[in-house]
């Protein structure tokens, strides 16, 4: 896995971060629509980013 530098790893991390935002942002948005509230979407986005960062640390933080 050497030689390619960080580009491919960077793209994988990017996809995790996008997935976090998408998954929990969508969940929050759906809850908002369903319950008629307005605060699930921001919470979902924050939770998504937090989980994404956590997952990146778990997957890529150990090898060093």
């Amino acid at each position, binding site marked *: *896995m*050497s*030689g390619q530098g960080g580009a*491919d790893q960077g793209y994988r991390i990017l*996809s995790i971060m996008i997935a976090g935002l998408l998954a929990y942002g969508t969940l929050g948005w759906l809850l908002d629509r369903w319950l008629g509230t307005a605060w699930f979407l921001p919470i979902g986005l924050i939770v998504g980013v937090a*989980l994404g960062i956590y*997952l990146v640390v778990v997957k890529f933080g150990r090898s060093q």
Partner: protein
Amino acid sequence: MVPLLIPMEGDEHGWPPGVHSFDSRPLFPALGPEWGWLNNHLIQAIIGAAVVIGFWLWMARGQQVVPGRKQFLGESLYNLLRNSIARDILGHDFRKFLPYLVALFSFILVNNLFGQLFLFMFPTFSKIGYAYGLAILSYIVYNAAGIAKYGFGSYMRRMTLPEGVPVALWPLIIPLEFLSNFIVRPVTLAMRLFGNLFAGHLVIMVFVVGGSMLLTMTEPTAGFPVPLLNTAGVVSLLFSLAIFALEILVAILQAYIFTVLTAQYISSAIAEEH
């Protein structure tokens, strides 16, 4: 800018270039709309495939122990892909996937360079459908490789559950990993290729079409005198050459990145436990 652009809407030069500049034209309009799928960009992609197949067949013919000039060129190209992409990323399993990776790289590269080639002047993958097609193909390849190696159940477990996550977080992490590995990955793979080529081609069109239009102006427009407009046209055309050079770099880089990421995804699908 706005007063400069509006009088030229619908100009015979096709100014301003936009999404409509990427529309395909049917090859035989006389045959009617049911033959509309047979358009110039499809033919271009098929020619690209034929060029790639022809090139590698030609390179593979008449191989000798002591390589001649042609064989040396072919082997250098092949070794570059084999060693710097396939073997580095995939490790000892790389032979199985090498033909796909070589074909992928050469097909994308040829189609990207069509954007700089005067015969076509259009990068095939700036039509997003073609980029999606390639991403779907890579998606099938890396998932099939993983399923073939681990079986469906344990492959899904590996792809949705990274090691080292406590059980309490599983319900939160599993949907995230699933989305990241099975949806975001292939979509971003296609988007990256499409976006780079679409934007690059659009910028080239703005400079070339706009420059030649400014150069051929014969009456003052928007309060600017004719010599100033013509000078701006010359500068714009000269600058478009620099962008052409940049686009050649982008064409090579994007073919490389697409191939590297496909190899990377295959490698993460078949990776050993560690």
